[in-house]
Protein backbone atom coordinates (compact mmCIF):
# COMPACT_ATOMS: atom_id res chain seq x y z
CA UNK A 1 0.00 0.00 0.00
CA UNK A 2 1.38 3.41 -0.89
CA UNK A 3 2.03 6.39 1.33
CA UNK A 4 -0.78 8.51 -0.04
CA UNK A 5 -3.19 5.73 0.74
CA UNK A 6 -2.40 6.21 4.40
CA UNK A 7 -2.79 9.93 4.11
CA UNK A 8 -6.32 9.17 2.98
CA UNK A 9 -6.80 6.81 5.89
CA UNK A 10 -5.65 9.51 8.24
CA UNK A 11 -8.03 11.98 6.66
CA UNK A 12 -11.03 9.76 7.02
CA UNK A 13 -10.06 8.71 10.49
CA UNK A 14 -9.82 12.31 11.58
CA UNK A 15 -13.24 13.05 10.20
CA UNK A 16 -15.07 9.82 10.72
CA UNK A 17 -13.97 8.54 14.05
CA UNK A 18 -15.02 11.49 16.19
CA UNK A 19 -18.40 11.17 14.55
CA UNK A 20 -18.49 7.51 15.41
CA UNK A 21 -17.61 8.15 19.00
CA UNK A 22 -20.04 10.98 19.44
CA UNK A 23 -22.71 9.55 17.21
CA UNK A 24 -23.19 13.04 15.81
CA UNK A 25 -23.63 14.29 12.29
CA UNK A 26 -20.61 13.96 10.05
CA UNK A 27 -18.97 17.15 8.88
CA UNK A 28 -20.06 16.71 5.30
CA UNK A 29 -23.26 14.80 5.91
CA UNK A 30 -26.14 15.49 3.56
CA UNK A 31 -29.07 17.43 5.06
CA UNK A 32 -31.65 15.30 6.79
CA UNK A 33 -34.99 15.31 4.96
CA UNK A 34 -37.85 17.03 6.76
CA UNK A 35 -40.12 14.92 8.94
CA UNK A 36 -43.47 14.33 7.24
CA UNK A 37 -46.15 14.05 9.87
CA UNK A 38 -49.33 12.07 9.13
CA UNK A 39 -52.03 13.86 7.11
CA UNK A 40 -54.05 14.14 10.31
CA UNK A 41 -53.82 12.88 13.86
CA UNK A 42 -54.54 9.19 14.27
CA UNK A 43 -55.14 7.49 17.59
CA UNK A 44 -53.69 4.17 16.48
CA UNK A 45 -51.32 2.75 13.91
CA UNK A 46 -54.19 0.74 12.47
CA UNK A 47 -56.26 3.86 11.90
CA UNK A 48 -53.25 5.51 10.24
CA UNK A 49 -52.49 2.53 8.02
CA UNK A 50 -56.10 1.97 6.96
CA UNK A 51 -56.40 5.66 6.05
CA UNK A 52 -53.30 5.49 3.84
CA UNK A 53 -54.50 2.26 2.26
CA UNK A 54 -57.85 3.84 1.45
CA UNK A 55 -56.14 6.92 0.03
CA UNK A 56 -54.11 4.60 -2.19
CA UNK A 57 -57.27 2.82 -3.36
CA UNK A 58 -56.01 -0.46 -1.98
CA UNK A 59 -52.45 0.05 -3.15
CA UNK A 60 -50.52 -0.51 -6.36
CA UNK A 61 -50.41 -4.13 -7.51
CA UNK A 62 -46.84 -4.51 -8.67
CA UNK A 63 -45.48 -7.38 -10.71
CA UNK A 64 -41.89 -8.59 -10.80
CA UNK A 65 -41.40 -6.31 -13.78
CA UNK A 66 -42.77 -3.16 -12.16
CA UNK A 67 -41.92 -3.46 -8.48
CA UNK A 68 -39.38 -0.89 -7.28
CA UNK A 69 -35.93 -2.35 -6.68
CA UNK A 70 -33.47 -1.08 -4.08
CA UNK A 71 -30.42 -3.09 -5.09
CA UNK A 72 -27.01 -3.10 -3.49
CA UNK A 73 -25.57 -2.70 -0.03
CA UNK A 74 -26.88 -0.07 2.33
CA UNK A 75 -25.84 1.48 5.61
CA UNK A 76 -27.93 3.44 8.07
CA UNK A 77 -27.46 7.18 8.04
CA UNK A 78 -28.91 10.08 9.91
CA UNK A 79 -32.29 10.36 11.56
CA UNK A 80 -34.37 12.74 13.63
CA UNK A 81 -35.39 10.28 16.35
CA UNK A 82 -33.08 11.67 19.03
CA UNK A 83 -34.73 15.07 18.68
CA UNK A 84 -38.04 13.58 19.78
CA UNK A 85 -36.73 12.82 23.22
CA UNK A 86 -33.83 15.21 23.88
CA UNK A 87 -33.74 18.99 23.66
CA UNK A 88 -30.43 19.92 22.09
CA UNK A 89 -29.74 16.26 21.76
CA UNK A 90 -28.75 16.08 18.12
CA UNK A 91 -25.24 14.68 18.13
CA UNK A 92 -25.71 13.14 21.54
CA UNK A 93 -27.90 10.07 21.57
CA UNK A 94 -25.47 7.46 22.75
CA UNK A 95 -23.29 9.96 24.57
CA UNK A 96 -23.85 12.84 26.99
CA UNK A 97 -25.70 15.98 26.01
CA UNK A 98 -29.22 17.27 25.65
CA UNK A 99 -32.02 17.52 28.15
CA UNK A 100 -34.91 15.11 28.45
CA UNK A 101 -37.85 16.66 26.65
CA UNK A 102 -40.71 16.65 29.18
CA UNK A 103 -44.17 15.35 28.36
CA UNK A 104 -43.22 13.23 25.35
CA UNK A 105 -42.96 9.99 27.27
CA UNK A 106 -45.48 8.77 29.81
CA UNK A 107 -44.44 9.37 33.43
CA UNK A 108 -43.02 5.89 34.05
CA UNK A 109 -41.11 5.88 30.76
CA UNK A 110 -39.91 9.46 31.20
CA UNK A 111 -38.62 8.61 34.67
CA UNK A 112 -36.76 5.61 33.31
CA UNK A 113 -35.34 7.64 30.44
CA UNK A 114 -34.23 10.40 32.80
CA UNK A 115 -32.41 7.85 34.92
CA UNK A 116 -30.80 6.38 31.79
CA UNK A 117 -29.62 9.84 30.70
CA UNK A 118 -28.19 10.47 34.19
CA UNK A 119 -26.18 7.28 33.76
CA UNK A 120 -25.00 8.47 30.34
CA UNK A 121 -24.02 11.88 31.73
CA UNK A 122 -22.14 10.30 34.63
CA UNK A 123 -20.34 7.55 32.73
CA UNK A 124 -20.10 8.91 29.21
CA UNK A 125 -22.54 6.32 27.93
CA UNK A 126 -25.02 3.70 29.04
CA UNK A 127 -23.15 1.10 31.09
CA UNK A 128 -24.73 -1.91 29.44
CA UNK A 129 -26.57 -2.39 26.18
CA UNK A 130 -29.01 -5.29 25.90
CA UNK A 131 -27.50 -6.13 22.51
CA UNK A 132 -24.31 -7.16 24.30
CA UNK A 133 -26.43 -9.94 25.74
CA UNK A 134 -27.39 -11.01 22.22
CA UNK A 135 -30.85 -9.54 22.34
CA UNK A 136 -31.99 -8.57 18.87
CA UNK A 137 -32.21 -4.85 18.12
CA UNK A 138 -35.78 -5.34 16.93
CA UNK A 139 -37.92 -2.48 15.79
CA UNK A 140 -37.80 0.49 15.96
CA UNK A 141 -34.04 0.16 16.61
CA UNK A 142 -33.57 -1.79 13.36
CA UNK A 143 -34.05 1.49 11.53
CA UNK A 144 -30.81 2.89 12.98
CA UNK A 145 -28.76 -0.24 13.42
CA UNK A 146 -25.43 0.08 11.67
CA UNK A 147 -23.60 -2.64 9.79
CA UNK A 148 -24.83 -3.52 6.30
CA UNK A 149 -28.33 -4.01 4.98
CA UNK A 150 -29.96 -5.36 1.83
CA UNK A 151 -33.51 -4.92 0.58
CA UNK A 152 -35.41 -7.32 -1.66
CA UNK A 153 -38.81 -6.28 -2.99
CA UNK A 154 -41.10 -8.95 -4.41
CA UNK A 155 -44.77 -8.59 -5.31
CA UNK A 156 -45.88 -10.66 -2.31
CA UNK A 157 -43.19 -9.76 0.23
CA UNK A 158 -40.41 -7.30 0.93
CA UNK A 159 -37.34 -8.53 2.78
CA UNK A 160 -35.26 -6.12 4.82
CA UNK A 161 -32.05 -7.84 5.81
CA UNK A 162 -29.48 -6.61 8.31
CA UNK A 163 -26.05 -8.18 8.59
CA UNK A 164 -26.28 -7.57 12.34
CA UNK A 165 -27.34 -10.90 13.84
CA UNK A 166 -28.99 -11.71 10.51
CA UNK A 167 -32.00 -9.83 11.73
CA UNK A 168 -34.42 -9.77 8.83
CA UNK A 169 -37.80 -8.14 8.52
CA UNK A 170 -40.47 -9.60 6.29
CA UNK A 171 -43.25 -7.37 5.05
CA UNK A 172 -46.30 -9.20 3.72
CA UNK A 173 -47.75 -7.19 0.86
CA UNK A 174 -51.52 -6.90 0.57
CA UNK A 175 -52.08 -9.17 3.56
CA UNK A 176 -53.57 -8.79 7.05
CA UNK A 177 -51.74 -9.35 10.32
CA UNK A 178 -51.33 -12.93 11.49
CA UNK A 179 -50.15 -14.14 14.87
CA UNK A 180 -50.47 -17.90 14.89
CA UNK A 181 -47.92 -18.15 17.73
CA UNK A 182 -49.88 -15.74 19.94
CA UNK A 183 -46.53 -14.12 20.69
CA UNK A 184 -44.57 -10.93 20.29
CA UNK A 185 -41.15 -10.94 18.64
CA UNK A 186 -38.23 -8.59 18.05
CA UNK A 187 -39.40 -7.45 14.63
CA UNK A 188 -43.08 -8.22 15.10
CA UNK A 189 -45.46 -8.80 12.22
CA UNK A 190 -45.34 -6.40 9.28
CA UNK A 191 -47.90 -5.94 6.53
CA UNK A 192 -47.74 -3.40 3.75
CA UNK A 193 -48.81 -2.09 0.41
CA UNK A 194 -47.27 -0.09 -2.39
CA UNK A 195 -48.44 3.32 -3.42
CA UNK A 196 -46.56 3.73 -6.66
CA UNK A 197 -42.91 3.56 -5.69
CA UNK A 198 -43.56 4.06 -1.96
CA UNK A 199 -43.83 1.12 0.41
CA UNK A 200 -46.18 1.60 3.38
CA UNK A 201 -45.76 -0.74 6.35
CA UNK A 202 -47.64 -1.35 9.59
CA UNK A 203 -45.79 -3.34 12.24
CA UNK A 204 -47.23 -4.67 15.49
CA UNK A 205 -46.71 -7.36 18.16
CA UNK A 206 -43.20 -6.16 18.90
CA UNK A 207 -41.17 -7.12 21.96
CA UNK A 208 -40.48 -4.30 24.42
CA UNK A 209 -37.13 -2.83 23.43
CA UNK A 210 -35.61 0.61 22.94
CA UNK A 211 -35.14 3.24 20.24
CA UNK A 212 -31.41 2.63 20.57
CA UNK A 213 -28.75 2.66 23.29
CA UNK A 214 -29.08 5.77 25.45
CA UNK A 215 -32.62 6.36 24.22
CA UNK A 216 -36.05 5.53 25.72
CA UNK A 217 -37.64 2.15 26.06
CA UNK A 218 -40.57 0.98 23.98
CA UNK A 219 -43.43 -1.06 25.40
CA UNK A 220 -45.04 -4.26 24.20
CA UNK A 221 -47.87 -2.12 22.79
CA UNK A 222 -45.49 -0.32 20.42
CA UNK A 223 -46.55 -0.22 16.76
CA UNK A 224 -45.31 1.84 13.86
CA UNK A 225 -46.32 2.95 10.39
CA UNK A 226 -43.48 3.44 7.92
CA UNK A 227 -43.33 4.91 4.42
CA UNK A 228 -40.20 3.92 2.47
CA UNK A 229 -39.09 5.39 -0.82
CA UNK A 230 -35.87 5.51 -2.76
CA UNK A 231 -34.53 8.90 -3.84
CA UNK A 232 -31.38 10.25 -5.41
CA UNK A 233 -29.74 13.02 -3.45
CA UNK A 234 -28.01 16.09 -4.84
CA UNK A 235 -24.74 14.18 -5.17
CA UNK A 236 -26.40 11.46 -7.21
CA UNK A 237 -26.27 9.00 -4.31
CA UNK A 238 -29.25 6.71 -3.85
CA UNK A 239 -30.91 6.98 -0.46
CA UNK A 240 -33.83 5.25 1.21
CA UNK A 241 -35.96 7.71 3.14
CA UNK A 242 -38.21 6.31 5.83
CA UNK A 243 -40.96 8.46 7.28
CA UNK A 244 -42.15 6.72 10.41
CA UNK A 245 -44.77 7.34 13.06
CA UNK A 246 -44.38 5.58 16.40
CA UNK A 247 -47.51 4.56 18.31
CA UNK A 248 -47.01 3.42 21.88
CA UNK A 249 -49.92 4.07 24.24
CA UNK A 250 -47.87 2.87 27.21
CA UNK A 251 -44.57 4.59 26.41
CA UNK A 252 -45.64 7.72 24.54
CA UNK A 253 -48.08 10.45 25.55
CA UNK A 254 -48.95 10.87 21.86
CA UNK A 255 -47.72 9.35 18.58
CA UNK A 256 -44.38 10.70 17.40
CA UNK A 257 -42.98 10.99 13.88
CA UNK A 258 -39.37 10.85 12.70
CA UNK A 259 -37.38 10.40 9.51
CA UNK A 260 -34.56 7.90 8.96
CA UNK A 261 -32.10 7.62 6.08
CA UNK A 262 -30.22 4.67 4.63
CA UNK A 263 -27.39 5.37 2.19
CA UNK A 264 -26.46 3.16 -0.72
CA UNK A 265 -22.87 2.03 -0.24
CA UNK A 266 -21.35 1.25 -3.65
CA UNK A 267 -17.90 1.65 -2.11
CA UNK A 268 -18.53 -1.48 -0.07
CA UNK A 269 -19.61 -3.37 -3.18
CA UNK A 270 -16.45 -2.19 -4.95
CA UNK A 271 -14.39 -3.43 -2.01
CA UNK A 272 -15.90 -6.87 -2.50
CA UNK A 273 -18.02 -6.87 0.63
CA UNK A 274 -20.57 -9.64 0.88
CA UNK A 275 -22.88 -10.15 3.82
CA UNK A 276 -21.95 -13.29 5.76
CA UNK A 277 -23.90 -15.30 8.24
CA UNK A 278 -23.08 -14.56 11.86
CA UNK A 279 -24.87 -15.49 14.99
CA UNK A 280 -24.41 -13.75 18.30
CA UNK A 281 -24.77 -16.28 21.08
CA UNK A 282 -22.03 -18.56 19.79
CA UNK A 283 -19.59 -15.75 19.15
CA UNK A 284 -20.04 -13.02 21.73
CA UNK A 285 -17.83 -12.66 24.77
CA UNK A 286 -19.48 -9.65 26.34
CA UNK A 287 -21.53 -9.79 29.51
CA UNK A 288 -22.81 -7.62 32.36
CA UNK A 289 -20.58 -7.67 35.41
CA UNK A 290 -21.59 -7.34 39.06
CA UNK A 291 -21.43 -3.53 38.82
CA UNK A 292 -23.71 -3.50 35.81
CA UNK A 293 -20.91 -2.59 33.40
CA UNK A 294 -20.17 -4.21 30.10
CA UNK A 295 -17.31 -6.67 30.25
CA UNK A 296 -15.62 -8.96 27.79
CA UNK A 297 -14.19 -12.42 28.41
CA UNK A 298 -10.66 -12.95 27.15
CA UNK A 299 -9.13 -16.16 25.78
CA UNK A 300 -8.49 -18.62 28.57
CA UNK A 301 -11.15 -17.18 30.86
CA UNK A 302 -14.17 -19.31 31.79
CA UNK A 303 -16.93 -18.99 29.26
CA UNK A 304 -14.75 -17.54 26.50
CA UNK A 305 -15.93 -18.50 23.01
CA UNK A 306 -13.79 -18.37 19.90
CA UNK A 307 -15.86 -16.11 17.63
CA UNK A 308 -14.57 -17.97 14.60
CA UNK A 309 -16.48 -21.03 15.75
CA UNK A 310 -15.60 -24.24 17.51
CA UNK A 311 -14.79 -27.85 16.81
CA UNK A 312 -14.74 -30.90 19.02
CA UNK A 313 -12.16 -32.52 16.79
CA UNK A 314 -9.25 -30.09 16.83
CA UNK A 315 -6.69 -32.92 16.75
CA UNK A 316 -7.86 -34.13 13.36
CA UNK A 317 -6.31 -32.65 10.22
CA UNK A 318 -8.43 -30.12 8.39
CA UNK A 319 -10.36 -29.02 11.47
CA UNK A 320 -8.72 -25.61 11.95
CA UNK A 321 -11.09 -22.67 11.88
CA UNK A 322 -8.43 -20.32 10.55
CA UNK A 323 -6.79 -22.21 7.67
CA UNK A 324 -6.16 -19.20 5.43
CA UNK A 325 -4.16 -17.19 7.97
CA UNK A 326 -2.35 -20.31 9.15
CA UNK A 327 -1.34 -21.13 5.58
CA UNK A 328 -0.08 -17.59 5.09
CA UNK A 329 1.94 -17.80 8.28
CA UNK A 330 3.48 -21.07 7.13
CA UNK A 331 4.68 -19.62 3.82
Amino acid at each position, binding site marked *: *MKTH*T*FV*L*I*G*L*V*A*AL*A*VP*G*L*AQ*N*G*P*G*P*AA*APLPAVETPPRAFATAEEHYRFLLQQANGGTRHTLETIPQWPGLW*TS*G*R*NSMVDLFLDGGRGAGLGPGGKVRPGVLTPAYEAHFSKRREEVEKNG*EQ*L*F*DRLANCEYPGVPRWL*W*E*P*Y*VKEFVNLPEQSWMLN*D*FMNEGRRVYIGKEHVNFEAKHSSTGDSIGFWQGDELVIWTKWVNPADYT*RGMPLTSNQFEMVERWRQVENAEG*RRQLITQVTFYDPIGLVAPQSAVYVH*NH*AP*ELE*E*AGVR*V*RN*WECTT*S*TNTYKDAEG*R*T*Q*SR*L*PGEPGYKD*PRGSTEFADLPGQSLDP*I*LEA*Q*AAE
Partner: protein
Amino acid sequence: MYDKMLANLLTAAVGLGWMTGASAHHSFTMFDKTRTQLIEGTVAEWQYNSPHIWLYIDAPDAKGELVRWGVEGGAPLMVIRQGVRGDSFRLGEHVRIVMTPMRDGRPAGAVCFVVKDDGQTLMPNDGSCSPNGVLKKWQDNGWLQNGKHGDEHPYE
Protein backbone atom coordinates in the same frame (compact mmCIF):
# COMPACT_ATOMS: atom_id res chain seq x y z
CA MET B 1 -6.68 0.00 -8.75
CA TYR B 2 -6.50 -0.76 -5.04
CA ASP B 3 -5.77 2.86 -4.19
CA LYS B 4 -8.71 4.01 -6.34
CA MET B 5 -11.00 1.61 -4.54
CA LEU B 6 -9.78 2.72 -1.13
CA ALA B 7 -10.06 6.36 -2.08
CA ASN B 8 -13.67 5.75 -3.07
CA LEU B 9 -14.33 4.06 0.25
CA LEU B 10 -12.89 6.93 2.20
CA THR B 11 -14.50 9.65 0.15
CA ALA B 12 -17.88 8.02 0.49
CA ALA B 13 -17.40 7.58 4.19
CA VAL B 14 -16.76 11.26 4.68
CA GLY B 15 -19.30 12.51 2.20
CA LEU B 16 -22.18 10.53 3.55
CA GLY B 17 -21.47 11.01 7.18
CA TRP B 18 -21.90 7.25 7.34
CA MET B 19 -20.71 7.15 10.87
CA THR B 20 -23.73 8.98 12.12
CA GLY B 21 -25.71 5.81 12.32
CA ALA B 22 -22.94 3.85 13.89
CA SER B 23 -23.53 2.20 17.19
CA ALA B 24 -21.44 -0.70 18.34
CA HIS B 25 -23.30 -3.61 19.80
CA HIS B 26 -22.01 -2.89 23.28
CA SER B 27 -21.10 -0.02 25.56
CA PHE B 28 -17.41 0.92 25.83
CA THR B 29 -17.44 1.48 29.57
CA MET B 30 -15.07 -1.44 30.16
CA PHE B 31 -12.28 0.65 28.63
CA ASP B 32 -10.48 3.48 30.42
CA LYS B 33 -10.71 6.28 27.90
CA THR B 34 -8.52 8.57 30.00
CA ARG B 35 -5.38 6.54 29.21
CA THR B 36 -3.55 5.21 26.20
CA GLN B 37 -1.04 2.39 26.36
CA LEU B 38 1.54 0.95 23.98
CA ILE B 39 1.83 -2.81 23.64
CA GLU B 40 4.01 -4.66 21.17
CA GLY B 41 4.52 -8.27 20.26
CA THR B 42 3.77 -10.87 17.62
CA VAL B 43 0.32 -11.53 16.19
CA ALA B 44 -1.16 -14.67 17.74
CA GLU B 45 -4.74 -14.37 16.48
CA TRP B 46 -6.47 -12.05 14.06
CA GLN B 47 -10.21 -12.44 14.44
CA TYR B 48 -11.89 -10.55 11.64
CA ASN B 49 -15.33 -11.37 12.98
CA SER B 50 -18.60 -9.57 13.65
CA PRO B 51 -19.57 -7.71 15.66
CA HIS B 52 -16.03 -6.67 16.66
CA ILE B 53 -12.61 -7.53 15.34
CA TRP B 54 -10.04 -8.68 17.89
CA LEU B 55 -6.29 -8.68 17.39
CA TYR B 56 -4.28 -10.78 19.86
CA ILE B 57 -0.54 -10.48 20.30
CA ASP B 58 1.95 -12.31 22.49
CA ALA B 59 4.29 -10.02 24.40
CA PRO B 60 6.83 -10.82 27.11
CA ASP B 61 6.19 -9.46 30.58
CA ALA B 62 8.87 -8.14 32.96
CA LYS B 63 9.92 -11.70 33.77
CA GLY B 64 10.16 -12.62 30.13
CA GLU B 65 7.07 -14.78 30.15
CA LEU B 66 4.69 -14.38 27.23
CA VAL B 67 1.38 -12.72 27.94
CA ARG B 68 -1.44 -12.68 25.40
CA TRP B 69 -2.86 -9.22 24.91
CA GLY B 70 -6.06 -8.53 23.02
CA VAL B 71 -7.46 -5.39 21.47
CA GLU B 72 -10.99 -4.91 20.22
CA GLY B 73 -12.00 -2.80 17.24
CA GLY B 74 -14.99 -2.18 15.00
CA ALA B 75 -17.02 -4.57 12.91
CA PRO B 76 -15.40 -5.96 9.75
CA LEU B 77 -17.85 -4.16 7.51
CA MET B 78 -16.92 -0.91 9.24
CA VAL B 79 -13.17 -1.26 9.47
CA ILE B 80 -12.96 -2.24 5.82
CA ARG B 81 -13.85 1.37 5.18
CA GLN B 82 -10.56 2.19 6.87
CA GLY B 83 -8.70 -0.25 4.63
CA VAL B 84 -8.47 -3.05 7.21
CA ARG B 85 -9.23 -6.48 5.81
CA GLY B 86 -9.15 -10.09 6.90
CA ASP B 87 -5.61 -10.47 5.59
CA SER B 88 -4.24 -7.21 6.98
CA PHE B 89 -2.25 -9.05 9.66
CA ARG B 90 -0.22 -12.22 9.40
CA LEU B 91 0.15 -14.63 12.28
CA GLY B 92 3.61 -14.19 13.76
CA GLU B 93 4.27 -10.70 12.45
CA HIS B 94 5.51 -8.04 14.86
CA VAL B 95 3.22 -5.09 15.55
CA ARG B 96 3.00 -2.14 17.91
CA ILE B 97 -0.44 -1.16 19.17
CA VAL B 98 -1.68 1.90 21.00
CA MET B 99 -4.93 1.24 22.86
CA THR B 100 -7.17 2.46 25.63
CA PRO B 101 -6.71 -0.25 28.26
CA MET B 102 -9.36 -2.11 30.21
CA ARG B 103 -10.29 -0.55 33.51
CA ASP B 104 -9.80 -3.76 35.46
CA GLY B 105 -6.17 -4.23 34.46
CA ARG B 106 -6.58 -7.34 32.36
CA PRO B 107 -4.28 -7.52 29.32
CA ALA B 108 -6.67 -6.04 26.78
CA GLY B 109 -8.10 -2.80 25.49
CA ALA B 110 -9.74 -0.93 22.67
CA VAL B 111 -7.43 -0.43 19.72
CA CYS B 112 -6.57 3.08 18.58
CA PHE B 113 -4.04 2.20 15.88
CA VAL B 114 -1.58 -0.51 14.91
CA VAL B 115 1.89 0.17 13.48
CA LYS B 116 3.43 -2.58 11.39
CA ASP B 117 7.17 -3.07 10.95
CA ASP B 118 6.99 -1.76 7.38
CA GLY B 119 5.66 1.55 8.71
CA GLN B 120 2.01 1.05 7.82
CA THR B 121 -0.43 2.44 10.35
CA LEU B 122 -3.83 0.77 10.45
CA MET B 123 -6.86 2.01 12.35
CA PRO B 124 -9.39 -0.78 12.91
CA ASN B 125 -10.79 1.11 15.88
CA ASP B 126 -14.33 1.41 17.14
CA GLY B 127 -15.95 4.28 19.00
CA SER B 128 -13.76 4.00 22.07
CA CYS B 129 -10.82 5.81 20.47
CA SER B 130 -10.31 8.64 17.99
CA PRO B 131 -7.09 7.30 16.54
CA ASN B 132 -5.89 10.18 14.42
CA GLY B 133 -5.61 12.56 17.36
CA VAL B 134 -3.99 9.88 19.51
CA LEU B 135 -1.51 9.00 16.75
CA LYS B 136 -0.54 12.65 16.31
CA LYS B 137 -0.03 13.06 20.03
CA TRP B 138 2.12 9.94 20.27
CA GLN B 139 4.16 11.04 17.25
CA ASP B 140 4.55 14.70 18.27
CA ASN B 141 5.75 13.78 21.74
CA GLY B 142 8.12 11.10 20.53
CA TRP B 143 6.22 8.51 22.55
CA LEU B 144 5.78 6.25 19.57
CA GLN B 145 9.34 6.44 18.26
CA ASN B 146 10.94 6.01 21.67
CA GLY B 147 8.22 4.03 23.41
CA LYS B 148 8.44 0.55 24.78
CA HIS B 149 5.88 -2.11 25.64
CA GLY B 150 3.71 -1.01 28.54
CA ASP B 151 4.26 2.75 28.22
CA GLU B 152 1.20 4.79 29.20
CA HIS B 153 0.17 8.36 28.46
CA PRO B 154 -3.02 10.34 29.02
CA TYR B 155 -5.67 10.10 26.31
CA GLU B 156 -6.38 13.83 26.30
